[in-house]
């Protein structure tokens, strides 16, 4: 039966070339959009690793002020922590969660090396973002001993550098001593990659201009106004920018989701187009082959047989198109394009095949049923 169908299609291959091309291109478009969706979905299911509700990010811009920066920063931080509305406050490098700043490079242990994000934070950081170390502890000023600087890495960095070995107390880089390991830390939001990262303890002399504060629920802009006024009274030339992590998270999400939505809309429009075209062509084909159907029915083929024949023919055409498409699509996981995990591409190929066969079946079903309803007497009478 199947080989018979293949033979039928092969004999009229010139006639079906354009259909196959259409299915081939549709497959590639589907593959593209499915890769994008799989990538984002796979990221989304990984937890983000910290709490961002009621956390504000304060950007302290010192502008042209050059005098006693460290002292002023110290006073400001103490003032912030003294408010009853503030649960915890922590200094951080400018690449705070959901911000658009990044800082990255390689993290080395002996001969192994992973590429990851660099962060600087102080001892109150885990209280501000509700992070719990899974191994060891978060660092504090008392960890600064001799020439070693305490660092905390995340699970991804641990796996990349140490595998199954316990990393606590190991020295990475030149003089960074691992004191703790945390779980995920996806600073750019749920849709970002789960990357390795390393935290350094903020140096008191070095100037970082970001402060994260966790406020009590229900704290409003009145407190914010009070806070910025207070900062301005300590450092007159400075400007303070307050942003809420929830808003910044929304921005990051929009950045990730808008391209997906745009591509999805365009793909749906293309596929609806293709589906309607297929439907029309099948209708025409069946009208042309009434006699053939009539003869088959007269020779004892059941309505079901006729239906299967037409749907089957469409599947065979789709298979040719999809096979050529797969030939192109497998290059992506094989050549490791865009440095994305191969499993995402395989998933995308699988999903595309399912969706494409779904569409083809949907388009073929109604015309095939019409064909099955043709009575031999009516069909043969016309001759």
């Amino acid at each position, binding site marked *: 039966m199947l080989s018979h169908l293949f033979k039928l299609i092969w004999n009229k291959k010139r006639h079906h070339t*354009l*259909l196959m*091309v*259409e299915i081939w*291109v*549709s497959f590639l*478009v589907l593959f593209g959009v499915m890769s994008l969706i799989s990538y984002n979905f796979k990221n989304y299911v990984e937890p983000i690793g910290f709490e961002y509700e009621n956390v504000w990010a304060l950007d302290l811009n010192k*502008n*042209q002020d050059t005098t006693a920066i460290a002292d002023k920063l110290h006073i400001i931080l103490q003032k912030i922590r003294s408010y009853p509305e503030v649960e915890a406050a922590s200094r951080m490098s400018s690449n705070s969660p959901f911000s658009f700043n990044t800082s990255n490079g390689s993290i080395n242990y002996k001969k192994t090396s992973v590429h990851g994000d660099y962060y600087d934070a102080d001892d109150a950081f885990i209280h501000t973002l509700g992070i719990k170390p899974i191994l060891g502890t978060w660092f504090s000023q008392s960890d600064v001993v001799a020439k070693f600087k305490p660092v905390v890495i995340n699970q991804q960095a641990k796996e990349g550098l140490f595998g199954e070995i316990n990393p606590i107390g190991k020295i990475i880089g030149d003089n960074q001593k691992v004191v703790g390991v945390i779980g995920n830390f996806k600073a750019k939001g749920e849709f970002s990659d789960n990357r390795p990262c390393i935290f350094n303890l903020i140096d008191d002399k070095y100037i970082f201009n970001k402060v994260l504060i966790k406020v009590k629920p229900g704290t*409003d*802009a*009145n407190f*914010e*106004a009070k806070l*910025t*006024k207070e900062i*301005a009274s300590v450092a007159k*030339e400075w*400007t*303070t*920018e*307050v942003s809420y992590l929830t808003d910044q998270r929304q921005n990051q999400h929009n950045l990730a989701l808008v391209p997906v939505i745009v591509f999805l809309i*365009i793909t749906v*429009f*293309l596929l*609806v*187009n*293709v589906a*309607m*075209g297929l*439907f*029309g*062509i099948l*209708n*025409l*084909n069946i009208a*042309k082959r009434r006699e053939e159907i009539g003869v088959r029915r007269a020779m004892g083929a059941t309505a079901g047989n006729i239906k299967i024949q037409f749907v089957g023919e469409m599947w065979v055409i789709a298979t040719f198109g999809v096979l050529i498409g797969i030939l192109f699509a497998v290059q992506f996981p094989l050549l490791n394009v865009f440095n994305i995990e191969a499993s995402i591409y395989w998933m995308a190929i699988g999903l595309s095949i399912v969706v494409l066969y779904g569409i083809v079946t949907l388009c073929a079903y109604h015309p095939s049923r019409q064909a099955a309803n043709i009575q031999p007497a009516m069909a043969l009478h016309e001759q």
Partner: protein
Amino acid sequence: MLFNYIKIAWKVLLRHPFYTFITLFGITLTLTVLMVLTSFIDHLLGSHYPEYKRDKSLYIMNLTIQDSARSSMNNSPLSYNFIKEHIQKLKTPEKVGFSTFVSFANSYLNGKKIKLNTKFCDANFWEVTDYEFLEGKPFNEQNIANGEHVVVITDAIKKQYFEDETASAVGKSIEIDNEKFRVIGVVKAAPVTRLMTFSDVFFPYNLPKSNYQTAGLQGNFTAIVLAKSKSDFKAIQEEFNASVNRIPLPIALYGQKYDVIEVRAQTYTDTVLHTFMSGGREIYFYIGIVFILLILMGLPAINLVNLNVSRIMERASEIGIRKAFGAPSSALAWQFIIENIFITMIGGSFALILTLIIISIFNDSGLILHADLSINFSVFGVSLLVCLVFGLLSGVVPALRMSKMKVIDALKSS
């Protein structure tokens, strides 16, 4: 003759409403997507409020310094010093205006926070751009020289900050980042996509918070150079490059030595492309656009070709008779192509209506703040061209197939 072809096409359309629907549906959707896309690109790159003079302006946005080995690179907007020395002193341009990139400030009002985009600019900025003043006037050289705490705000901010919307805001005071400013003018807000001119509030550039005294070549300013006419671009660029070449090298910055300065006065489109794809990668942008267009138009076109080729037999008798009476293949091919273009144009007009609806929904949605997408003459022209290309793309193959049909076959089957 043309009229006859169109009349035939119309009759064919009416014969099978179902196939007509499929055809028009595909054409309309395709062209709508392309028209919205065109309108969006025009919104980003065309001359619109407040930059009506964009085609007569050169933009200087970034200055890159590199060491001779090209291993270390520093890319940043310009410093005020650089603008003063190398741009304002140019003789060929008509005018030079400058401003900072957008930064942010907060304003608090009765427990409500208003987040503001701020910009520091000079008096000429108001002349190289076309901001429409609804109230008051821009600050001038005198205001700047006096170091006055004045500010120009947009109508959107006025609405948010001042309770009485009808009264003039000019002369009132507004508190931004814990400093008081006197409102000197109110302008109509511009879309957020006007990278170099958009803002909510505009301050004179010499307020301390603009950091205009930064030493070195790099800072946070950008400049717009207005030429007398488009033909002066070359002269301005030459004069500007000559001026930049006089900067003594190498430059020391953060303990590094840099020997290469790269800064360009370019049209807006080039500036944007250069920013997002530096180093000759613009070509990828164009390849990407062509590829997307090819897929967007190609797939529906193949679809239509398929459908038309399948329907070829409907017209067999007509083709057979015309051929028997001596019509050449080319005449038949042209007839089918013209028919197809006619149908495409019908789809195109539906698409135009649909596009207008989508654009107005988009503008009102606030997805892009103060967006002003529109269908202007150039967008319409491009859309028409797209329709023609699409009509040809989907019409040529069926037309050739039909015109090549043998008279015998055509007449026999009917």
